[in-house]
């Protein structure tokens, strides 16, 4: 008998390789958006630094969020098609079933972000991060991906159908646009500006931005980590209770 978690994870990986469009979508869309903003619109924004250097951290977050739709859909199809029930009757722990989805999502995110950073370099991205800062970037991305991943798994479990599950993840995809991802919050209109300043993604983006500039701000980092832990906790508890209750 193998460890259930490894079996589940291998299943999720097989899904990724068998359904390349979802990976394609998760990898390609952020790159297209990057190209659009940096190449087509970048000159119109004045942010004080090279636009590609400003935008890359925000687009990394966007890339994480883009991958979530696929996670929500696949969790929900497991739920609605009775596959989760089958696992439950076989006494496979919710840890194994749900963690498989989260870990597969995080790894897709990492592939997408690696591709995104590669393209950013081609477009003239010149970070001044040290090795330690890059490690920090990696840690922040994994934490963010895991946190939003758990929230997405919960959304996927709770949704009625794969379609509504995909839809439930849309706010997470849109949220980066109302943050300092694309333009600084202080350039936005009343209301949106306050929202952008206080929403969780802004300190996360600012942390990534600081690390890539080689000048991380501990205030942003603490807020970012706190938000991620909070989101992860809410997502995990919600997912756990839905998993136990819904049949």
């Amino acid at each position, binding site marked *: 008998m193998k460890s259930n978690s490894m*079996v589940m994870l291998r299943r999720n990986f097989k899904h990724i390789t*068998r*359904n390349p469009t979802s990976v394609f979508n998760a990898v390609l869309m952020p790159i297209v958006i990057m190209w659009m903003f940096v190449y087509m619109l970048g000159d119109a924004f004045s942010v004080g630094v090279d636009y590609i250097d400003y935008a890359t951290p925000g687009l990394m977050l966007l890339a994480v969020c883009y991958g979530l739709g696929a996670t929500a859909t696949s969790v929900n199809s497991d739920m609605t098609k*009775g596959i989760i*029930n089958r696992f*439950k*009757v*076989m*006494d496979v722990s919710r840890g194994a079933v749900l963690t498989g989805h989260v870990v597969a999502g995080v790894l897709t995110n990492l592939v997408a972000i690696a591709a995104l950073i590669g393209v950013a370099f081609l477009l003239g991205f010149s970070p001044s991060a040290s090795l330690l800062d890059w490690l920090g970037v990696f840690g922040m991305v994994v934490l963010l991906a895991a946190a939003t991943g758990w929230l997405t798994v919960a959304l996927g479990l709770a949704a009625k159908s794969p379609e509504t599950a995909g839809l439930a993840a849309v706010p997470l995809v849109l949220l980066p646009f109302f943050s300092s991802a694309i333009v600084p919050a202080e350039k936005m209109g009343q209301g949106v500006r306050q929202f952008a300043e206080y929403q969780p993604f802004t300190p996360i983006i600012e942390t990534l931005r600081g690390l890539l500039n080689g000048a991380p701000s501990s205030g942003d980092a603490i807020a970012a980590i706190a938000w991620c832990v909070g989101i992860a906790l809410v997502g995990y508890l919600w997912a756990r209770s839905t998993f136990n209750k819904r049949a």
Partner: protein
Amino acid sequence: MTSSAIEASGLRKAYQDKVVLEGIDLNVRAGTVFSLLGPNGAGKTTTVNVLTTLIKADGGTVRVAGHDVATEAKAVRAAIGVTGQFAAVDELLTGQENLQLMVDLSPVRAKDGKRIVTQLLERFDLVESAHKPVSTYSGGMRRKLDLAMTLVGNPQIIFLDEPTTGLDPRSRRTMHSIIRELVADGVTVFLTTQYLDEADQLSDRIAVLDQGRLVAQGTPDELKRRIPGTHVRLRFTTAAELDAAARIIADSTREDEALTLRVPSDGGTKSLRALLDRLDEYSISAEEFSVHTPALDDVFLALTGHTTEVVAK
């Protein structure tokens, strides 16, 4: 064998204020087939979910394979296999990979796993498509794979929730013969169905579920005795003809408003010819002649006083 595989008493379940099960009592002997018969919305799936530890009942006790589902869920799960209402197969994996997944998740040793997978593929006639993704399978093949996956751990008690719904007649027959084989191997089968003939053919006992209550329970023969059997209906144009026919045909029941006469019959050609000859003898002719065999609807009408249509709402 007299030991019980499944025992439930006073099972109750409600979702918010909607009562789904209102005091269900069941007793399924080991090594038999038990059918839970009822229309959509009667509570069949909820019953299966409670018996298989998937949801908790609000009240009542359930013992499956001698273990309490509420307090010994693990032991229950080790003894049962469940095939849900929709084929719970992984579309992106092949048939062989689906079975291997079950082997990897069950306490089966890896060494035996390969053999078990091959045997199940052969038994369910899936060898040819073993390496094709399940998304290319037909409905019948999915159902077979679904059941094969359930059998990986060699469960003593198998729950089948509407195993033949949506299948074509040929796949349905295949499913029936598989169920018979399972029972021949000593497995206990608990199945739910909407089809009276299916329950009739397969089961040792049938329970009829209506709006969360069991309205009847017994062997197929006992139940059929309680419902109108196969009969012939003769419709006449005038009340005089109906009167005349009712006088000459024994055991008939008249329905005056519909100008119809109901005659019990086995539906065979011999008895039908005799009936028609008798009408001829007295020069009575019926406007319409039809043979009725009891369907689920008749069972419901007889047992509950309303048809399945009403229940489905």
